């Protein structure tokens, strides 16, 4: 399995090497690879369905518990098949769709990496590894959503999705670490083995909530659903992929993956279904008043994701089975519908359903395919969607908790779905045609949705073909062996009655809306009133406020006045030093001052005098010279105490300083009195305090007994170990070479910074 992931990575980069001649067919190459991988996964089906799992593990950072552990079991196989198969179709579709846009190579690069990281996500059985892939999908979807980055909306939407999913990702990461600290391992198998331990731990509830936040942000659950609406700014192939088999399904996957650990606990069964039901209803309710095809589809995706979450939250065999079936149902029809939406947009140049109509005459093929996909979405027989919906109703009836409420909510939501399906079909394909059509008929774009529609129909007629995929996954999630049978015809029962009722109500709703054009606008107005919070706007407003808040804070600390920075630094250093001097008080200034030869005392007098002069002088050159005298004087003192290296360095540096100061002074105005008397007094006080404290510190330093002194080691070993007699140099280049490396690196960075800052040209006015 490592090889597959490496293949995707290599493929993504190899795309740039494709010669110009065939570069127009790049997507087909990727599609072919996806197909090969898909066939490989199909080939693993017999092994997996007998209950085996394929594992591979390579040590990466064993100390951190992070290893490249991959597991192919029933659950990941289902997702792998969906990712590769729909990926295959998406790439074929994109080959035609993306032709007219610039930068397609970059697009395929992102999309290939995205497929690969999605596969990595579902295959990894180490949770830290899973988190890495999780974040990769977030980042890549950011890049994909912002692909048309010349549009402001696309950029905004991309940021929004990155913030929301990134926030969720961080929550998830904390949760992973929390549970990792309980189990002392990041491997899923260990977690499942020690599920009881996890559930009894006090860290269980916070971890669960954090994981759920991660899942809900990724899977666009209420109230995090809004990022998915913005995500439709992405090119249509991306939307099709994102909504059907990847990205949002990652959350569902993680729910299913962690089901054996968390599933069935009271916290799980109370939080997950409620959020799911809420999302299901919000999505389908808000979908019906939209007029943009892609937006309608996005809302229905949210609703479908709500259903999946809800089903995984209800803790029964039936519900998990329904969830798995619905996963396929949704992937098939949603990918097809997005691709069809793209096809219609290409054909007519618009996505607004009010501006479309009568397309049945120009593209009967498109009509048939759309109809099949929409019927599956509406859950009408003989589509796979029908079976999915029946199972969902059954699961809701069977729910141990608030089952009647769930059934009512589910039916309401499905009524909306039916109405939306018919609305889309009628508004787009029937009636008068309102737009001029593109000359190109884009028949190639119908290939992928056609196959998906056929699958919806085929699996609907022969549902048992689906069981070999679902059984192994079910056994992984529910951890017991379950034989399942899928049937189109369940016989007359409660569920069928409910289904009929749903469809009839849906059609009635549709007729009402279709007849009265005004009803939608009125409805929209009501919705705007009722749901005054526009999540997207609220999010960006919140973000703006946060940025303003931090800007204010930053300006308070980073005000840009060098003098105040220096004052702050010196005052804080003085305070810390005096505190240190205070708590270690009890030492006395050594009274035994040794008397130095007169020339050293004279030197000290000269140094002090020139320091004073440099402060009080009124001429720049004079100040510099006085400072240089101070420096040379100090280097002479070094020399007296036989610190030759130090003295040489000090002399050279001092010389260079003078030259540079002279260079700078040439360009500066003459000394002028800019500071008032009070500032001068303030600065003098600060400087004197600092100087005094430093003096005290050096007096104290004499008294500090540092035995055993480290310098003894250097003196003893310098010649023996490092073959050098100059201890200073040996310390610099051998004993403390890392420090020196750091210092010269800092020097280089500082020099580059200075040179860059000085070379900035003032903008011409």
């Amino acid at each position, binding site marked *: 399995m490592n090889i597959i992931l490496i293949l995707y990575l290599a493929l993504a980069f190899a795309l740039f090497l494709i010669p110009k001649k065939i570069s127009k067919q790049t997507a087909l190459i990727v599609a072919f690879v996806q197909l090969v991988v898909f066939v490989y996964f199909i080939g693993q089906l017999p092994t997996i369905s007998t209950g085996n799992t394929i594992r591979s593990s390579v040590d990466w950072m064993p100390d951190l518990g992070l290893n490249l552990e991959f597991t192919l079991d029933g659950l990941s196989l289902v997702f792998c098949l969906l990712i590769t198969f729909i990926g295959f179709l998406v790439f074929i579709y994109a080959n035609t769709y993306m032709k007219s846009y610039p930068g397609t190579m970059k697009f395929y690069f992102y999309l290939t990496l995205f497929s690969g990281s999605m596969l990595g996500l579902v295959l990894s059985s180490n949770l830290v590894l899973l988190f890495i892939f999780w974040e990769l999908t977030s980042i890549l979807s950011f890049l994909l959503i912002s692909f048309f980055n010349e549009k402001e909306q696309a950029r905004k939407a991309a940021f929004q999705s990155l913030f929301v999913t990134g926030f969720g990702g961080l929550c998830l990461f904390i949760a992973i670490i929390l549970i990792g600290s309980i189990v002392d391992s990041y491997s899923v198998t260990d977690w499942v083995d020690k599920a009881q331990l996890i559930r009894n731990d006090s860290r269980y509830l916070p971890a669960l909530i954090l994981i759920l936040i991660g899942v809900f942000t990724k899977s666009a659950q209420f109230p995090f659903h809004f990022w998915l609406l913005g995500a439709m700014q992405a090119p249509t192939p991306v939307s099709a992929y994102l909504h059907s088999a990847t990205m949002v399904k990652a959350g569902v996957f993680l729910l299913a993956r962690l089901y054996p650990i968390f599933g069935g606990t009271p916290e799980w069964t109370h939080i997950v279904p409620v959020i799911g039901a809420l999302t299901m209803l919000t999505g389908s309710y808000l979908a019906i008043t939209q007029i943009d095809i892609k937006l309608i589809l996005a809302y229905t995706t949210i609703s479908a994701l709500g259903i999946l979450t809800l089903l995984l939250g209800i803790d029964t065999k039936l519900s998990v089975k329904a969830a798995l079936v619905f996963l396929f149902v949704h992937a098939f029809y949603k990918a097809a519908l997005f691709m069809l939406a793209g096809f219609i947009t290409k054909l007519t140049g618009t996505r607004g359903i009010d501006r479309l109509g009568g397309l049945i005459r120009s593209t009967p093929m498109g009509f048939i395919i759309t109809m099949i996909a929409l019927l599956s979405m509406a859950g009408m027989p003989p589509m796979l969607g029908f079976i999915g919906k029946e199972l969902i109703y059954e699961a809701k009836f069977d729910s141990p908790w608030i089952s009647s409420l769930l059934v009512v909510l589910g039916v309401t939501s499905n009524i909306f779905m039916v109405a939306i399906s018919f609305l889309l079909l009628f508004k787009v394909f029937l009636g008068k045609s309102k737009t001029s059509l593109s000359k190109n008929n884009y028949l190639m774009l119908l290939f992928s949705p056609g196959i998906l529609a056929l699958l919806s129909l085929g699996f609907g007629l022969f549902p048992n073909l689906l069981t070999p995929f679902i059984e192994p996954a079910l056994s992984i999630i529910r951890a017991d062996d379950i034989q399942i049978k899928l049937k189109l015809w369940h016989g007359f029962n409660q569920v069928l009655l409910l289904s009929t009722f749903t469809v009839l109500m849906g059609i009635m709703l549709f007729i009402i809306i279709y007849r009265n054009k005004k009803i939608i606008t009125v409805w929209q107005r009501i919705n705007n009133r009722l749901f005054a919070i526009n999540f997207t706007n609220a999010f960006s407003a919140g973000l703006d406020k946060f940025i303003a808040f931090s800007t204010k804070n930053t300006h308070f600390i980073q005000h840009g006045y060098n003098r105040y920075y220096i004052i702050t630094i010196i005052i804080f250093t003085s305070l810390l030093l005096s505190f240190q001097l205070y708590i270690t008080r009890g030492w006395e200034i050594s009274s035994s001052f040794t008397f130095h030869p007169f020339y050293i005392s004279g030197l000290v007098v000269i140094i002090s005098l020139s320091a004073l002069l440099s402060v009080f002088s009124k001429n720049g050159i004079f100040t510099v010279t006085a400072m240089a005298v101070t420096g040379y004087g100090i280097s002479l003192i070094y020399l007296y105490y036989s610190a030759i290296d130090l003295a040489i*360095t000090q002399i050279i540096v001092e010389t260079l300083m003078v030259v540079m100061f002279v*260079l700078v002074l040439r360009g500066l105005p003459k000394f002028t009195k800019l500071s008032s008397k009070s500032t001068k007094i303030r600065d003098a006080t600060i400087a004197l305090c600092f100087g005094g404290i430093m003096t005290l510190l050096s007096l104290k330093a004499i008294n500090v007994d540092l035995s055993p002194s480290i310098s003894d080691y250097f003196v003893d070993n310098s010649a023996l170990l490092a073959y050098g*007699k100059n201890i200073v140099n040996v310390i610099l280049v051998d004993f403390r070479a890392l420090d020196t490396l750091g210092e010269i*690196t800092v020097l280089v960075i500082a020099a580059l910074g200075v040179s860059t800052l000085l070379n900035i040209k003032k903008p011409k006015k």
Partner: protein
Amino acid sequence: MNSIILQIAAKYLKILFLSFAFIALIRGHNYPGGGFIGGLLAALYIVYNSLAFTSRQIKQQLRVRPEHYMGAGLICALLSFLPSLLSGAPLMKGIWLSLNTSIMGEIKLGTPLLFDIGIFLTVMGVTLLFLFTLSINK
């Protein structure tokens, strides 16, 4: 400044300055000197030149940009860690090679010398960069 005396002197002092810098670098391990001092000495020569010539003339004389000296210096310093890394010793352990030459007796060459050369080049480059940016802008 454009002084003939300084310019002529610069020509002859060049050898003196640079050989001095070089000696300081080489002897550094056993006697006062080393990469820092050597690099500063070398830079000092250019500073001296900057008094005698215009900065454009110096740039022509120098041929290599100060940034490249800095980069080369860092690379030298990093390369000096390579032998210890390859021989499996702790990183940055000095590896020594002794050569027996008939003229100068035994010479010991070690990675610390390479490291010191790195310091030399970096310090020289940094000083020159400061100098040039300051003098050219004014």
